[in-house]
């Protein structure tokens, strides 16, 4: 898997969900605002359970939230 990194569309999805704040998203998925910010910045890869919760909040598939990007 070298040469690829995990990216996400959290910022865009939050925007399309009526500018949902990081704190609001964190509350819905059971993590702190700082953790949502870290996920968004690619500084933390969430557990599978949290990743599914995020996708569930926005009503999209997991691959619409997280995807691989070439380095």
């Amino acid at each position: 898997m070298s040469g690829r990194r995990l990216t996400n569309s959290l910022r865009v999805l939050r925007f399309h969900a009526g500018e949902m704040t990081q704190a609001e998203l964190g509350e819905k998925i059971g993590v702190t605002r700082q953790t949502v910010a870290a996920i968004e910045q690619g500084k933390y890869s969430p557990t599978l359970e949290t990743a599914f919760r995020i996708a569930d909040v926005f009503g999209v598939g997991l691959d619409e939230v997280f995807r691989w990007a070439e380095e």
Partner: protein
Amino acid sequence: MAWREKLAWLAIAGMLIGYVPFFYLFGREAAAGGPSMGRFLLLLGIASAVRVAIEIGGRLVLMLRLGAQAREPADERDRAIAARSSSFAYLALLAGMIVVGMFMPFSQQGIAIVNAALFAIVAAELIRCLAIVLSYRLGWQ
């Protein structure tokens, strides 16, 4: 800044302010023949009191200023960072205890061994806190 990162900074400050002068004074007095047990305990007591005062006082101030954040339970990222940081500290403590328990008794005695054990504990705790800070800052998990 995450709540637990703030607590780690506080612990680092407490340890540096409390124990750096202690180890400096101990080292200086050890070079001049070594401190007495009473003097050693007095210095250790002062250093520990300073550390505890900084941590408790700082935590109270932070809790008063950031009440809601202080009440947030640890989430999965906090737990992952805590686990990784503790594993680093465990290795440091293990190395320290090997030196203190398996090598020092053949060449040192008394207060020097106790002080080395204390140094290993403080160093391990410092490593744990630094790993926490770095993990929050750099996304190290």
